[in-house]
């Protein structure tokens, strides 16, 4: 915890860009790299209007399961005290392991944060994944292929905190809990770096 305290203390005097940590202003870009257990990934956001940003993200769980999505982040509230936004995204899942999965996924994330230089937040997510599996039956006469679908969900939340380290960089530390593929999943933690280059 000592290093975390040191980073926080170093970060406190700094002031990042005028936007809150979750909001990104029109024409601005944010790049994110995230590492942790079990999820790592990269993401990009681009502010298309004062309240709307586009989002593209690729995540992987231990390089076995991959999730990619693109969507919109809508900022509902960005006051001096609170920020509230919703991210809607569509994407795909691909997992190659003993249990292989693939298919499209729809995602909604609602995030509320206490605005300030150091910004704690709670993000609630619901991801609906249409798992599509194909089976090939090799009989004596012919080969037939059948498809089966199954709707699986990932629901849970992330508790985290974002704070600036320099003018253009912010660090995001979080703990994520919830389900995966409609089953209990062990909590995951991550550290992310957000980079907002000047417009």
């Amino acid at each position, binding site marked *: 915890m000592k290093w975390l305290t040191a980073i926080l203390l170093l970060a406190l005097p700094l002031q990042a860009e005028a936007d809150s940590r979750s909001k990104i202003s029109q024409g601005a*870009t944010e790049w994110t790299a995230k590492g942790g257990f079990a999820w790592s990934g990269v993401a*990009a*956001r*681009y502010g298309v209007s004062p309240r709307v940003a*586009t989002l*593209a993200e*690729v995540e992987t769980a231990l390089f076995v399961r991959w999730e*990619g*999505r*693109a969507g919109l982040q809508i900022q509902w509230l960005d006051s001096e005290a609170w920020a509230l936004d919703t991210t809607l995204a569509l*994407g*795909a899942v*691909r997992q*190659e392991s003993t249990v*292989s999965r*693939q298919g499209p996924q729809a995602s909604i994330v609602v995030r509320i944060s206490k605005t300030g230089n150091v910004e704690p937040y709670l993000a609630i997510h619901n991801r609906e994944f249409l798992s599509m*599996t*194909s*089976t*090939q*039956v*090799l*009989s*004596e006469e012919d080969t037939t*292929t059948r498809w089966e679908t199954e709707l699986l969900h990932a629901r849970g939340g992330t508790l985290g905190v974002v704070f600036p380290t320099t003018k253009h960089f912010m660090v995001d530390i979080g703990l994520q809990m919830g389900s995966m593929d409609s089953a209990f999943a062990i909590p995951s933690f991550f550290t992310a770096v957000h980079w907002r280059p000047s417009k």
Partner: protein
Amino acid sequence: MIKHMHCLLFLGWTGCLAPEALYEVELSGTVMSDQSGPVELWFMHASRGEGVLETEHIIFDTTWLDSEGDFTYTLQVPQAGGEGLEIYGWQDTNEDGAHCRPGTDPELSGLVESADYPSHAIEIELELFAECEGPESL
């Protein structure tokens, strides 16, 4: 660049995983037993994995027969699940649904490995001779 990144993201997701391949086998044969009663058949791969991770008797399907004697069954064998084809059977003589429940009379079991697999038509003879044995003991 960001605007185009959304499109690029999905180019990597257009491929499909290879389907799970099932090898269909028309299985026929005879279950021989000195007792009478329903027989449960377990269809198994003989082994899976290599070295210290090698595991034997991987069950991928089961079925019940009304009694010993002749039978036919259409089996779909997962191609990625392991090697070989074994058939284990046990006879539910007292029809309690359990194999050799404590306090009940011994029930017979047997195991046979098909030498003909892979083939779409396989004939076997399964003799139930051992009392209260699982496949790992036969």
